[in-house]
């Protein structure tokens, strides 16, 4: 029994961490409407400040205060330099992606300032105490106390004070709040300061019981986000309770079942929660079936039958004078062709075995995966944060089959892609019904579950070390052992992916998805099955991720968890945003541009590591933020046919209108600006 209390109490401690993060989420969302994905990294920064000042013979209280102040300041800076600038220009999803960028930027900075190693500090007052037979570190009391005090303060603030009520009014009805004389910008600053301060506090106080490293923010942030989502991003007390609950679930399950899979339980609970809520919710599966039963049976006839014979009501038509189909101008393909030709020629000037060649190969592999993500994010407007998970599925499949079972590399590659497709189908089928951020969270959770699995199932996947000794893939006289040959093979794969992506975008599937993206109800009424279209694009995008993963393994000749972590998803999202969401070449353009800049910066700064340099993370974050703030349409769209025509027309006209023509063509607004994303989020947060 004491053992159980032990688990419960330590669960409460980690629950407090989740709770305070969730509280910050709720406060920021409640006041500003921003879903702040940098919340976990705030805590990381708080922990880092604590860790680095603690060693300096600094009073502990001063360190804690410093952590709180620094993080609050970071949050305020974020509000001033990102949120306040683009608040009215990008939708809720856009704001969230920017905050994701801020989070990555903070990770990059932390990596540069504090290095790679995890840090911790001793308890404020070393020692333990016993409660109901459980032995607990004294620090536990600090954490519990801080959580309780924070919660009470927040409740008092929001329910008892005019200031708190004014803050709430901002998110509920900004226009009315403005009319009442509430200074929205001040309230937003205050909310970010409080949300940041809370994260800084928990980062500092929890440090003795945990440890902090540059990448420790992601998982904490995710769990905090879950707790906030349970509370509908609106009720502080529920958020705290959910955070505590998740902490207890994690620890009890870890203690009673298996500690190596401890995170799995939290993510599992999350997934089940999201899916069950979706199924049981208003208009969900259960409600539909119940009503259908009541009114004569859903499966009365399995196949849909038209009321009268098909098209009986056919209005006699005046034939239009047979206008031909509109065609793109011949030079529409020019820019992509130039880009691809340059990419094809790259190996001729790059030396095999050089760092530049390795960088080029990674760029190419990323471009394959990013092309899939462009379809998912840009065409399907599905905010997936689990793309690297699909890369991982295929990568590990190929490695396991070729190394452990000595399969033919080509067959293994095919099976790898197939499993990625199956994985994408299952993930998509489960999560695509979820709206807005729930989709992002669910896909991310599935990826993290996969990562936990490949790290822990050592006998099967080699654990942290991964699977080594993947044989070469051979075709004609080409072999993946040669970097040049590998480049050509991957290049052909990229061309195939681009061709499929382009055909799909131009076909009725692409058209339907663009219609769904702008007005889903309108599209459905015209017979468009939005779910099926989205699932199809999700699966095609997944196949491309699988292809990238399978080939990746032959390049590295190993499969290890760190290659396909959350950082890869962030990179891929960055590439797509930078290149342009609404253009099939967006992912490729982004991968080349960002990859090239990263290579140049890293090769300038240090000759040490090639792949996981500090600056890469930093640049990802910076690119993500800059492009969402300034060049929201991305590079590929800025250079697309309609735009170039617009520029040319403008030059001819002299200095005419400031903005290029936006009418016509598929390259209208990027997904981050759409109303659909906004309303999806409204649904998600309910």
């Amino acid at each position, binding site marked *: 029994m004491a053992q159980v209390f032990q688990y419960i109490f330590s669960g409460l401690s980690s629950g407090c961490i989740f709770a305070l993060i969730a509280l910050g989420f709720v406060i920021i969302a409640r006041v500003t409407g921003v879903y702040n994905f940098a919340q976990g990294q705030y805590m990381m920064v708080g922990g880092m400040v604590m860790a680095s000042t603690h060693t300096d013979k600094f009073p502990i209280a001063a360190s804690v205060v410093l952590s709180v102040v620094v993080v609050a300041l970071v949050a305020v800076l974020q509000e001033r330099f990102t949120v306040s600038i683009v608040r009215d220009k990008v939708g809720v999803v856009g704001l969230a992606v920017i905050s994701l960028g801020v989070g990555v930027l903070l990770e990059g900075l932390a990596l540069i300032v504090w290095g790679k190693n995890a840090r911790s500090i001793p308890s404020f007052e070393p020692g333990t105490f016993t409660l109901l037979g459980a032995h607990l570190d004294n620090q536990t009391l600090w954490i519990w106390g801080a959580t309780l005090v924070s919660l009470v303060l927040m409740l008092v603030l929001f329910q008892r004070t005019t200031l708190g009520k004014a803050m709430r009014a901002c998110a509920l009805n900004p226009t009315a709040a403005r009319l009442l004389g509430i200074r929205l910008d001040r309230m937003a600053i205050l909310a970010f300061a409080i949300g940041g301060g809370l994260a800084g506090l928990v980062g500092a106080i929890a440090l003795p019981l945990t440890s902090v490293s540059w990448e420790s923010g992601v998982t904490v942030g995710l769990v905090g986000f879950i707790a906030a989502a349970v509370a509908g991003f609106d009720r502080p007390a529920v958020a705290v309770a959910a955070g505590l609950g998740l902490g207890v679930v994690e620890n009890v399950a870890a203690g009673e079942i298996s500690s190596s899979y401890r995170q799995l339980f939290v993510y599992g609970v999350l997934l089940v929660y999201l899916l069950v809520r979706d199924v049981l919710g208003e*208009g969900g599966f259960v409600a*539909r079936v119940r*009503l*259908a039963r*009541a*009114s*004569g049976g*859903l499966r*009365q*006839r399995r196949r*849909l*039958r*038209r*009321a*009268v014979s*098909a098209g*009986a*009501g*056919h*209005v*006699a*038509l*005046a*034939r*239009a004078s*047979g*206008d031909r*189909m*509109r065609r793109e101008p011949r030079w529409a393909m020019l820019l992509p062709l130039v880009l691809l030709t340059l990419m094809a020629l790259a190996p001729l000037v790059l030396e095999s075995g050089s760092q530049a060649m390795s960088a080029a190969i990674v760029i190419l592999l990323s471009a394959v995966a990013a092309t899939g993500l462009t379809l998912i994010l840009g065409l399907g407007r599905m905010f997936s944060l689990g793309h690297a998970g699909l890369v991982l599925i295929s990568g590990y499949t190929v490695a396991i089959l070729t190394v452990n079972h000595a399969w033919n590399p080509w067959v293994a590659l095919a099976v790898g892609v197939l499993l990625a497709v199956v994985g994408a189908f299952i993930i998509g089928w489960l999560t695509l019904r979820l709206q807005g951020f729930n989709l992002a969270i669910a896909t991310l959770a599935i990826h993290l579950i996969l990562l936990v699995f490949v790290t822990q199932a050592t006998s099967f996947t080699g654990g942290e070390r991964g699977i080594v000794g993947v044989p070469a893939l051979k075709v004609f006289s080409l072999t993946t052992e040669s970097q040049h040959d590998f480049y050509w093979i991957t290049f052909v794969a990229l061309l195939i992916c681009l061709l*499929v992506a382009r*055909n*799909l975008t131009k*076909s*009725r*599937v692409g*058209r*339907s998805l*663009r*219609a769904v*993206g*702008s*007005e889903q*109800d*309108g*599209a*459905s*009424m*015209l*017979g*468009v*099955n939005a*779910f099926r279209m989205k699932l*199809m694009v999700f699966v095609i995008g997944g196949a491309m991720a699988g292809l990238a993963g399978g080939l990746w393994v032959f390049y590295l000749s190993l499969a290890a968890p760190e290659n396909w972590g959350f950082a890869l998803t962030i990179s891929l999202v960055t590439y797509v945003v930078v290149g342009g969401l*609404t253009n099939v070449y967006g992912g490729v353009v982004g991968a080349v541009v960002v990859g090239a800049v990263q290579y140049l910066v890293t090769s300038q700064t240090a000759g040490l590591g090639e792949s996981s340099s500090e600056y890469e993370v930093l640049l990802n974050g910076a690119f993500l933020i800059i492009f969402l703030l300034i060049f929201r349409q991305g590079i590929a769209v800025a250079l697309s046919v309609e735009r170039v025509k617009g520029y040319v027309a403008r030059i001819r006209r002299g200095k005419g209108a400031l903005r290029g023509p936006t*009418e*016509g*063509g598929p*390259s*209208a*607004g990027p997904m981050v600006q759409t109303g659909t994303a906004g309303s999806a989020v409204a649904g998600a947060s309910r």
Partner: protein
Amino acid sequence: MSAPAATTPAGGVAASEPLLCARGLIKRFGGFVAVSNVDVDVHAGHITAMIGPNGAGKSTVINLLSGALLPTKGSVTIGGQSIVGRGSHEVARMGVARTFQTPRLFDGLSVGESMMLPRALFAKSSYLECFVHSPRTRKDEAGGWESALDWLSFVGLADVAEMPMSALPVGSQRLVEVARALALEPDIVLLDEPAAGLDHTETERLARLIEQIAQSGIGVLLVEHDMHLVMSVADTVVVLDAGVCIATGTATAVSEDPTVIEAYLGVVNDKGAGEVKDV
């Protein structure tokens, strides 16, 4: 209160079985009852009009009939099959098309492209062929474009196919919506205030179009404020007020009904200026 089988102006006798048949429809939004116990019938080749003041629940009824909303209670059948619980794309495939009170503009698609959306149902090529852009896909695309143009010229707008819909005046947008609905080759069309924002001549043209649609055998449910239009085309009129059906009958009978005059026609004069934009 079901619409009685009536004689169409074209002289044909409407089928005794209604194509679309809704019984006891109730829709609650939270505690608010938007539609309460409404029955609607739509017969092939027959124009049923639904009138009522703003907020009476007309659009909500259309949403219920087209699968956009799940009724709190009640049944909707199309040709004997229940549609309750089905998604609106399925209802569309079963032969029910609709327009929206606020036209759907489909940002990023030209008018012609948006007209091709419903034509996807008639595509002969598989999705797999879409990936490789096979000859059959190309043929589908060309055919879809042609028929998009055909339907646009039916409503007199063949020359706007390459324009974005947002560039059209609202009257043309409504006509595009009608054309798009027809491109589904439906058995039933539900029109939500198609004449709002149309000038006199456009309304006249719309009236002729609606009659033409009905003559071809399609059942029409016309939600409308314009009494003149309703009186000129409707075979049956259903009057809603505050979610309740207060009268059903021929246009003349309804317009003489004292309850209707009190609840609705009295309001007609104050209205007309204020066009409320709701779904």
